[in-house]
């Protein structure tokens, strides 16, 4: 099966902008279509093709703080073009995806995921920072090219930024094919990481809140490099602020690959505070994902980090339990399934999911959850069998012993489980046992 999905980015023209008497005007071009299929041909009358959302611009209006939007969008674009971890011996393959924009509930959200699948960035421009003339719900890709980045770098705090996202009528009328086209072979794990990140975020709660000064001191004190498999833990210190601890403790937040948090550094000059989100941990916890939310005037910049620099979000198994349940039942429209298919984003500040229809059809993406697929195969092949009190799963010619619900965990004697011990979700053998259980995939050993 293929490990990549071909993504065609087609834009009528390049995103562009200009400064007129110091006032910025930015036009962000959106993709004609976000699916893996080529754009539909022009109609017989010669009228230009329309995208899935119609010909109307995605958003027109103005942003209150031009400098905040410009600086945040630059960071989002930077993350999209960066690989923070390069496996040893792997040639650098630049399969960079374009950032995504979502308009919903008065928010404009610009998102991206790094090429290594371990850093997620999102600029949320809040309703208070937007003066909307026209907007429609939905998600699409945007072109953030070098020339536009150069313009955004010039924007300072002046009058509001005029912002148009999407094609204008003139451009549609003169369309005779895509002006800008780029093909990207996106790894499947990139797509599933984008879906899995928000599942991890939804389990987090606010752990720390820093003022601007403490935020600056903490970020600037981060190491500039670390071992890709190392994680440190941000713990509170007396007098406010955070320190990097070597081990987890109650209240601390995992910071894998701490140098990655320096993505926030260029935004610190605008920040009014920093909020840190994480899961509940104790001294025995394994590294987990985290969310770092920089508070900006009328905006928030959210940075999601995988547990370690060498790990993407897709391998964390965050959704496997839910997907296994959904598979056994008919709940194909559960939040879990929708999340796995990239149809939901999560806002930790507002503690809610938001609809974000990714411009990929994950149901058509092969191997989005290879572990679950392998488990289904094992279960279907009758590999799960009981011997006395033991439940065994035959795989690669040997039997692995699985025990469910031991001290609230499931265990297996396979090498994968031995390495990760549940920190990345269940192994395929545990999943196979659950799928084979007469009580369903919620647990219980098969008879």
């Amino acid at each position, binding site marked *: 099966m293929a490990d990549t999905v071909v993504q065609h980015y087609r834009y009528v023209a390049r995103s562009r902008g200009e400064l007129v008497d110091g006032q910025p005007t930015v036009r962000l071009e959106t993709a004609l279509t976000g699916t893996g299929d080529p754009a539909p041909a022009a109609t017989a009358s010669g009228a230009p093709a329309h995208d899935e959302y119609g010909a109307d611009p995605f958003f027109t209006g103005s942003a209150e703080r031009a400098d905040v939007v410009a600086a945040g969008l630059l960071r989002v674009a930077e993350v999209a073009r960066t690989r923070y971890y390069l496996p040893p011996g792997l040639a650098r393959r630049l399969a960079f995806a374009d950032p995504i924009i979502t308009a919903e509930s008065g928010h404009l959200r610009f998102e991206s995921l790094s090429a290594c699948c371990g850093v997620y960035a999102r600029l949320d421009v809040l309703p208070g920072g937007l003066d909307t003339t026209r907007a429609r719900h939905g998600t699409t890709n945007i072109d953030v090219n070098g020339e536009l*980045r*150069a313009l955004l*770098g010039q924007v300072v705090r002046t009058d509001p930024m005029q912002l148009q996202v999407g094609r204008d009528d003139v451009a549609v009328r003169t369309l005779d094919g895509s002006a800008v086209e780029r093909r990207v072979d996106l790894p499947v794990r990139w797509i599933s990481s984008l879906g899995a990140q928000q599942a991890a975020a939804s389990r987090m709660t606010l752990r720390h809140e820093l003022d601007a000064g403490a935020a*600056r001191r903490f970020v600037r004190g981060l190491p500039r490099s670390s071992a890709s498999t190392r994680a*440190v833990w941000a713990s509170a210190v007396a007098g406010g602020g955070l*320190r990097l601890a070597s081990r987890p403790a109650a209240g601390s937040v995992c910071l894998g690959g701490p140098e990655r948090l320096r993505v926030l550094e260029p935004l610190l000059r605008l920040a009014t505070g920093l909020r840190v989100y994480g899961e509940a941990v104790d001294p025995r916890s394994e590294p987990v994902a985290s969310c770092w939310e920089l508070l900006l005037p009328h905006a928030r910049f959210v940075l999601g980090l995988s547990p370690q620099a060498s790990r993407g979000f897709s391998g964390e198994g965050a959704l496997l339990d839910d997907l296994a349940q959904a598979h056994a039942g008919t709940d194909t429209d559960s939040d879990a399934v929708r999340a796995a298919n990239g149809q939901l984003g999560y806002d930790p500040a507002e503690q809610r999911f938001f609809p974000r229809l990714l411009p990929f059809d994950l149901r058509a993406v092969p191997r989005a959850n290879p572990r679950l697929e392998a488990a289904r195969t094992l279960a279907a092949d009758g590999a799960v069998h009981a011997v006395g009190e033991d439940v*065994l799963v035959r795989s690669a010619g040997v039997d692995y*012993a699985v025990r469910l619900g031991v001290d609230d965990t499931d265990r297996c004697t396979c090498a994968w489980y031995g390495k990760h011990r549940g920190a990345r979700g269940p192994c395929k053998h545990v999943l196979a046992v659950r799928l084979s259980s007469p009580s369903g995939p919620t647990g219980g050993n098969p008879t």
Partner: protein
Amino acid sequence: MDLVVRAIVDDRVPDVVAVLDGATEAERARLAAAIDSGTSSWATTELLRGTSDSAARLAAQLGTVPSPRAAALAVGMGRGSWEHEDWLLPVLGQRPDGWLERFAVALFAADDWLDKRPRWRLLRAMVRAGMVAEPTDPRYVSWLFEAVRGPLDQAAQADPGLVPLLWRAFSTEEAGAALTGGGGPGGGGPRRDEHWAGLLTALGTGDPGTRVRAIDASLRALGAGLPDRDAAGFLALHGRLGVTASERRDRQYAYLRLLAAHPLVTVTFAQQVLGELLADGRLDARALVDASADVLVRADRKSVVAHLALLARILASDPALAPAIAVVVAPTLDPERADLALRTARLLHDCARHLDDDAREGVRAAITQALPAPWPELRATLGTLAPAALPTAPARPAVCPVPIDLPAPEAVTAIADVRELAEVFAHLLEEPAPALEIERALEAVVRLRAELPSSARALSKRARKVGESVVDEMDLNVRRRIADLVVRWLDDGPPSTQCRGYQLHGSAPDRASAPPGTAVREVPMHQNLGEGRLAALPSAWWWTAQEPAWTPSILAVARLHEVTVTLREGPALLLSTPTRGDWTIDPDEVLARLRTVAGAAGGRPHDRGTALLRIAPGDRAAVLSAGVLADDDDARLDLLAQRSPRWRRTVTPGLGGRFRSFAGHETLAWLDDSSTPGTVTDPVRGVLDLSSTVRQHGSYVDEATWEPQHEATLGLWAGLTPFDTDVLAAHAHPLLLSWDEKPTAGVGPLLDAIGAASAPLGAPSLSALGLAAGFRDATVRSRAAEAIARCASHGLLDGTALGAQAEVLVVEKRVKVNRLVSTLRDASGISDHAAHTVLAASARLLTIAPTTPGGGAIIELAAVLAESHRVRVPLPAAVAALAAGRAGTKSAMAARRLAALT
């Protein structure tokens, strides 16, 4: 194939093209295999010897290899295309379009260490020939500056399509760096004057309009958020454009925008230009004030100091801007940047007299929020803008908080059954687990050895694979030993090899010169004369020997070997399994075990010795008086009970490691003059004998360097010395001295063990903490801080003694001051106990601070801690002298803060 080979040997590219013309892809693939050095026949290899750099060889590869990526690698590795890319186009033209597209992408994707120049040149030739579309990859632009031959203006004349690429450089990552030659090997970028001239000519800056375009483009590039390494290149380019004063005035808002840029060089440049405009009276000073907030919160000190000076000049020339300046400056006061805070306070003081009451109140509120408790000198400088004074307790001599009792150690839970044991071994085979987990597994495998888990076959298979795959250079790998143990248990495999010391290697000019008693082998040497001819050279003589050793790693691994023997030969239980999480064994339990095995060969030597080491000091007398120990164990336990170490710090030439042909280097060691020589069969005397830290210093470092997952072995060290942290620390010194600059240094388990001490730390432990505090690896420094804090909280760490050890290390230049201070500061934030301990340590370090580079940070740390805890610190004469002066240095300001408390 013969025709292709002949064409390659004759280095005739047109012949290669002609031979391949019309060949199918399948035929080409067969030819590729036939001429590839890895798959070709010996005869072909011999024929093609010496052709790897020829254009014809490369042409043949490009015309035949199926994989575009392999073809791209060939371009990057060979020199065949450096001058002849046009010759290669015909053979590339024979390949299908899809292959060419992927080849174009692969030219970028090939490894970075491969030369970019031939790759770019070939790609450019293909683009010019219309064979592939112009890439959108930014490296197509940035590599241009290295790859183009000769001056750019001449290249652009020959290839006008380069000009648009040059303009794209202004918005392309890495292009700026390439301009200054920072982009790669050979550095072909325009660093010399003629190259810059060529670039400007190619851009067309001779035309006034184009020149203006270039000026604006370079300014945009500087503010475009490109990586910092690009800034220098665009700055240099901007500087070469001869921007006039009036052009700068017209663009002052563009320069103002650069104040928000990230690279320091960009901000410094902008400040310089704006300062010149200010001097000429051409600057919109209000706009500069409004743009100042971005600079004043920068991490670097230089730009902040420069900007405060700029604002002071503005204030002097236009006092009406005082309110705007004060509003921008006040919130940037940072108590952790004391010297900058003082400069900022001086500027605010100068603003104050131009503020009305309302403005003054607003500024005071902002200052109070940023810095609610300014120290006396700062308060005096702020004058009427200073926050309202809060009542503070008078400073008094330091009083340490009452120590917290050591926590009761958790009980170690035995593994319940063979199913759980299988799960634990599955984990130990994959990951370096905590040492106590290994102990649980050892205990359980001896106890349950007659039972087999249902997953035995899978586990055994995995264990064999692990055992075969681990590269165990020094026979000390814990993971491999565990794999051997599992195979022994499940498959009746052989016991693991017994390790009694270190393998040494060396060379000698002849057999007679090799050290006596070593195994010597002759290694024939030859010189390759080409064409299959070899010339004999004098043989090399290599010797190997095993040097007996009883370092903690050797002892730990010897015990693992012993358990594999115990599995088959008994006894049926281990004496040394801890019952508590602090490695101790409950005295009743140890007596019961001793009685059980007394009749069964009395237990094995490493098991017995390790058990003795794990009897808590307070329980030793009870065990001795029970009379169940054999005579020699009695003597060993008595040795532990009566031990009174006499620590001696020595700086000595340390001996090299495995390869004794290499000389050792000077090392620091802690020796106990009260110890007796050890042996490999006696863990008690072995671990207490610290002479190995000198005699086998290099071997300590070698094992950590060559053994995978060595942290797992270090974790077992703690189990040998649970009550003798100083012994552990002394053994740790070879590593701590050698690994301080490693980006990732796996010494964490040693620091954790020191932090878990249950007795006051002696000099070796304090020295170890001092060394770890200066490590480059921030994780190590963090663990050192945590160890300091933990010991301080339990009253086990004398801060003054820590400072004394740190002082010696600083004087001997074994630790960097800034890292040491950073670690101490980190520790002080963990708890009140740690803060007082660190204050005592920094007070001790004050004696050397004034004369040590970077010592101002020590004085500042002491001042901050003393102020926050209202502690009077006695000042050494040199510090008192600094305090008495009015110097503006960091050291002097901090000294005055300390003096204000006395």
